[in-house]
């Protein structure tokens, strides 16, 4: 007679569940309580302070605009990179290795790299000046040039965050059997048809993961914005940081944290519904 061993998986995953519960769920509950209480009593005061704050609307607008601008471009670039590298034989690993370098750089460091390029005495201004294209250094990152600032932050974020999307998409592309494409080619399907009708549907699970991961991270954008724009471009996480550190009002900071979490959860839900994956193709 065989022993009933159905309990083994539960025992094996228990440490990780307990760990997450202690170090994630508990602080989460505490944060939510911090956001919706004042002096130990339930209260909406923190949420009202947050919503009535000078930077609240612009922080929401900037965060959403940045996500809308950055994520689609990152997905497109990653798809292009993944498709290109799929055709490469020798040296494929080296190319992938170089492409993933930004993954190893912290976001603050990435922000500082771009700051050294874009600040007044930075590389871009020096280059334009040497080429005689400008008479004096231009400001790219000031409150007077919000479009240039937005553009700079978007470029820095795309540079920094595309690699992770590409890694996921390359992994997805590796699982697509070559025979499908070859068969389609025999029946006269062009490159684009093959891409849209065969490759794209087959990498849907990878695409879904990449979208969820990147979008959630985009809503949490902070260090790059802080390095390049300081307080010139408020974003949600930046406001949470300011309320926590500068204004020392932990309740309002918690309210921002909860808002960011709700937005991220909503985005994840939308992707799970919108990019529907055939259950049979789930790993």
């Amino acid at each position: 007679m065989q022993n009933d061993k159905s309990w083994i998986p539960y025992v094996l995953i228990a440490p990780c569940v307990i760990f997450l519960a202690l170090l994630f769920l508990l602080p989460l509950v505490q944060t939510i309580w911090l956001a919706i209480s004042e002096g130990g009593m339930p209260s909406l005061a923190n949420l009202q302070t947050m919503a009535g704050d000078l930077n609240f609307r612009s922080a929401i607008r900037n965060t959403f605009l940045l996500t809308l601008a950055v994520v689609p471009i990152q997905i497109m670039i990653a798809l292009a990179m993944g498709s290109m590298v799929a055709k490469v034989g020798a040296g494929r690993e080296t190319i992938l290795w170089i492409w993933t370098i930004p993954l190893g750089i912290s976001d603050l460091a990435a922000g500082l790299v771009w700051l050294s390029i874009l600040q007044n005495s930075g590389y871009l201004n020096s280059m334009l000046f040497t080429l005689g294209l400008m008479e004096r250094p231009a400001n790219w990152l000031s409150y007077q040039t919000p479009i240039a600032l937005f553009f700079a932050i978007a470029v820095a974020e795309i540079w920094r965050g595309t690699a992770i999307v590409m890694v996921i998409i390359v992994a997805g592309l590796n699982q697509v059997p070559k025979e499908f494409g070859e068969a389609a080619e025999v029946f006269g399907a062009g490159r684009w048809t093959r891409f849209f009708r065969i490759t794209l549907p087959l990498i849907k699970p990878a695409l879904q993961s990449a979208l969820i991961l990147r979008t959630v991270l985009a809503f949490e954008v902070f260090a790059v914005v802080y390095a390049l724009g300081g307080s010139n471009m408020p974003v949600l996480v930046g406001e949470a940081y300011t309320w926590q550190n500068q204004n020392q009002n932990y309740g309002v900071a918690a309210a921002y944290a909860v808002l960011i979490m709700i937005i991220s959860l909503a985005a994840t839900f939308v992707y799970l519904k919108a990019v529907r994956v055939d259950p049979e193709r789930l790993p």
Partner: protein
Amino acid sequence: MKRSLLIGLLAASGFLTATVAKAETVFLSTQLRPIEEATAVRNVILKGLAAPVEYVVEEPPQFAVRMEAERQAGKHTISLVGALHGELSPIASKDGFVPLDDLAKQLADNGMPKALLDLGKLGKDKQQYIPWMQATYVMAANKQALQYLPAGADINKLTYDQLIEWGQKMQTETGQPRIGFPAGPKGLMARYFQGYFYPSFTGGVVRPFKSADAAKGWESFKKLWAVVNPNSTNYNFMQEPLLADEVWVAWDHIARLKEAVASQPDQYVIFPAPAGPKGRGYMPVVAGLAIPQGAPDETGAKGVIEHLVKPETQILTARNVGFFPTVDAKLPADIEPGIAMLAAGVQATQQAPDAVISLLPVGLGDRGGEFNKVYMDAFQRIVIRGEPVTDVLSQQAASLSKLIGDTGAPCWAPDAPSQGSCPVE
């Protein structure tokens, strides 16, 4: 065998940390954090003390969190803290400090100014901290800027109108806005509005927040801002844009100008901030020493305080880190030229005949950050976003009024004293 070895090691290390913790007085500071300054504190300023002191530094937000954590846990490791007036205030409001009245009396007898000592009461009956070092804010100018100074203007008696004219002239002649302010996320711009702008234009800080004088002041500040480098909203320490030649004339805390002035003393001049219709506002910065309730080594901490406020130590501190004495101590003639320039600037500010001294906020508890926000939001809306002055002032005055009402803070100088919380008129 292995196991007993491990236990032995554990016991030994436990014993070691226990003895170390017992032998050393832990001194936690939010000031003098850069490695050169911290080393100077450890190797020069604290040298000569009989008992060893462990000097540890922490950024202000982490300092607040750590102190609160130790208070809530009831497990204290820190015997002495050194921090700014505003950073000590939230802890004092929760009765987190040991009263230091004996020490204060002793220092008063030895000539520490009463006004300064009284700041250390933080609006309470008992002495919460002992003033440790002081500083203030001054203006620095690159000597290249001096040729554009308006005719007849004396740099040590500058007015706001002259500063605006100076800025306009530099802008037209060099093609670039050459004035800078530390309005970045870590800059001290809020102190400019509380200690310089408001006292100079209105003679107060809280009471006349939305007065006609204030509105006039903001209009004039908008004129000034037109010739201020727009990167100012990214500047945190003015020594950096000064050294990079991006800015020629700047206002900042002396510690945040020190690097520029100390490295090129021939290139810069230091002078008091400009005067407005109501005088020349200025704000002293005071760092204090306090002993947390439950400190493991209260006696040792008192010894360290006594050492740090001795005139010799105070001069050593000025010489090494550029903060000035709180006690009666003459700086020696052979002090570094950069520090001597800053000291002269501070003296010119304090001794200006039209000086309006603005004290640090007292009684705001842990709402100091939000108090700063009121002024910075007014600046953001009026100057950066161009919203109508009177509307913004009356809306921000409502937040200010609520904040002061919540804390019950009475007026502090230069506002006239109040019964109860300070009213916004």
